[in-house]
């Protein structure tokens, strides 16, 4: 091929690429969305995407972002390798300037690393890996609290609510820790252990057990050890199939603890757990975004309005009350819109200025969240208000903090297995 022909070819390629990109932006603003839509996290990834879509429509009804209609280019990221390559592809081929996702702590590290390498904004709405914001990456933000925040809230609930209801001082409580072994489980568990011990002097009993969630087929050894350790509180961080299996075996082998506490939209916090166990699930706690019983009146006026609208949108889309994955995605995307409204551009430095300038109290946003980002791009634990939900007759309902809900926590301590009705 002659040199001139080659040059012509390259030029025409560049021209067509440029036109493609500019066409994409006429009247539309495209962001990249990474979700695990296949693989073991597919169920939650799908709900996460539903949350995004509901809020995207709400945003577009209000005129979109930066005066353009917000649209998604969605990529399936079942594992960390896919997360990295797809993030790169969305930036280099689809030309997006903002990438968001990814639901899981297994994915967000790789995805964000790849995105910021191309100097775009990475907007995480749900992973809780504590290392996420400790890598000195400038354009990486997370709207959800990290796992240490989960641990913080869980211990807060155990010390301030469960202890008095069990008639004990926090330092008289015996607590056992069990967890799946990803950075999510380890992050929550280690921060909870630390706070439980140092701040409240709770007694840790038994050895901390970490297990691999997707290949554990029997929990007998764990249950036997727990029976020997006799904890009051079982702090169990789980993905979903392991929570379902553990709980079945715990019932069969009659493991009796006074309370089971989890954090996150997986495991005990997932709808599938309740479906699998029916009334046996009664009494289990999961730290989450607000569920039924949540008093919208407890929010600020602007928060009330947007929260109601969000719930209706999810109800219309899925036929159910928003689930954890919906709420994380929805809350996070709404926050992104708030930032873009303020920045009026997707220039990373201007966006950063806008993010840092936001200071909204608890109750201002979807899920009753407030906003105050740290220099590392992390929304503050105490602003991202979390709620303790409890399984009550087939539904996860909000039970704590009590000022935010009409429901009250029941079955404390947990009665015998056949009386959890």
């Amino acid at each position: 091929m002659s040199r001139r022909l080659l040059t012509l070819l390259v030029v025409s390629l560049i021209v067509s690429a440029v036109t493609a990109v500019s066409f994409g932006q006429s009247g539309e603003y495209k962001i990249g969305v990474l979700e695990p839509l296949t693989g073991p996290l597919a169920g939650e990834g799908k709900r996460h995407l539903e949350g995004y879509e509901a809020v995207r429509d709400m945003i577009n009804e209000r005129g979109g972002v930066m005066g353009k209609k917000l649209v998604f280019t969605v990529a399936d990221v079942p594992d960390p390798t896919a997360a990295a390559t797809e993030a790169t592809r969305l930036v280099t081929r689809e030309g997006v300037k903002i990438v968001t996702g990814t639901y899981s702590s297994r994915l967000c590290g790789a995805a964000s690393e790849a995105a910021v390498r191309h100097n775009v904004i990475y907007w995480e709405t749900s992973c809780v890996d504590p290392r996420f914001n400790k890598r000195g990456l400038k354009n990486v933000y997370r709207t959800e609290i990290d796992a240490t925040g989960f641990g913080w809230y869980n211990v807060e609930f155990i010390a301030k609510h469960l202890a008095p209801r069990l008639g004990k001082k926090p330092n008289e409580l015996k607590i056992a820790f069990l967890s799946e072994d990803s950075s999510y489980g380890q992050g929550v568990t280690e921060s909870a252990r630390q706070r439980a011990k140092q701040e409240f002097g709770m007694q840790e009993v038994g050895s901390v057990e970490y297990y691999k969630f997707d290949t554990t087929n029997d929990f007998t050894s764990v249950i036997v050890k727990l029976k020997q350790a006799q904890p009051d509180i079982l702090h169990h961080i789980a993905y979903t199939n392991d929570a379902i299996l553990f709980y079945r075996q715990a019932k069969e082998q009659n493991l009796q603890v006074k309370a089971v506490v989890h954090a996150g939209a997986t495991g005990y916090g997932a709808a599938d757990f309740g479906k699998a166990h029916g009334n046996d699930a009664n009494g289990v706690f999961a730290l989450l975004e607000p569920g039924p019983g949540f008093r919208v009146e407890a929010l600020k006026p602007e928060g009330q309005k947007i929260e109601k609208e969000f719930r209706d949108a999810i109800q219309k889309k899925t036929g159910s009350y928003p689930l954890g994955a919906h709420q994380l995605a929805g809350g996070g995307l709404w926050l992104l819109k708030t930032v873009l409204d303020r920045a009026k551009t997707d220039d990373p430095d201007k966006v950063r200025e806008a993010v840092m300038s936001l200071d909204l109290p608890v109750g201002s946003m979807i899920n009753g969240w407030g906003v105050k980002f740290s220099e590392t791009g992390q929304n503050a634990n105490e602003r991202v208000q979390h709620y303790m939900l409890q399984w009550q007759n087939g539904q996860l309902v909000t039970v704590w903090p009590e000022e935010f809900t009409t429901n009250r926590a029941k079955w404390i301590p947990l009665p015998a297995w056949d009386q959890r009705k």
Partner: protein
Amino acid sequence: MDPAARLGSAQIDVVAQLAVSTVLLGGIYALIAIGLTLIFGIMRVVNFAHGEFLMLGMYLAFFAFTLKSIDPWVMLPVALVIFFAVGLLVYVLVMKGVIHASHNVQIFTTVGLSTALQNIALVLWSGDYQLFRPWHASVVLRLGATAFNLSQVVAFAVAVLMTAALFAFMKFAHTGRVMRATAQDRDAATLMGIDTDRVYRLTFAIGIACVGTAGVLVSPLYAAYPQAGLQFVTLAYVVVVLGGLGDMVGALAGSLIVAGVEVGGSYVFGTAWKEVLYFILFIAVLVFRPAGLFGQRGAESLGV
């Protein structure tokens, strides 16, 4: 009772529960492994899609129960027939073309089949974790201080029955002998007038029927989801290597050993060590007894 004696009986209770769980878990592994060892042993094909047929069996039972209220136990004979047919179909459509190809080609094919089946399940039935509770899944039997549920006991009993039946079939039935002859020397078998293609087709169908039935049996115990097969299938390989390729009784024994290492090892060393322990066992067997703990010497090189 003095404290020392009480401690003693508590320890016995622990060991008893661990032992019961080992046996029942071993039964589940055996259900999955016998089909695999059959296909592996006779066809010399590493079927990476094996776990996906387990998953399909779980979904079959799930839908039969939720849509038509059919108990999984009633579904067993139905599943046997359905999965035998599925096995035949998959053999004709997919495996037949690669049965004489190199191992690499076979591996690519079965891995591809595995991925395809997982994603078909995902598209059709979503990624949700589906568990249903027929009456027997809620019946907890107590023996001394041990507890286990009826579904598990029946799964174990069926595992033993299927092992025995397949063992007898391979040993005494004419077709079984033909299958073994084909495994030992494909070319010689052809020269003796054996239609090896027919043997492979039958072997594959029986293997898939076994694992599909296993899926139905474990469905009240484990949630069904598109990747459910992966939860068990790596273990099934360990079992097959332990027991020796194509050895039914070896597969049962291997299952019990793997389950024992898993349950006992998790108790002694902690759950995190589980996989380390049984893969050490796996490597040790490959190094010291490559034909498997119970396999015939030299069997490892047959036809490979």
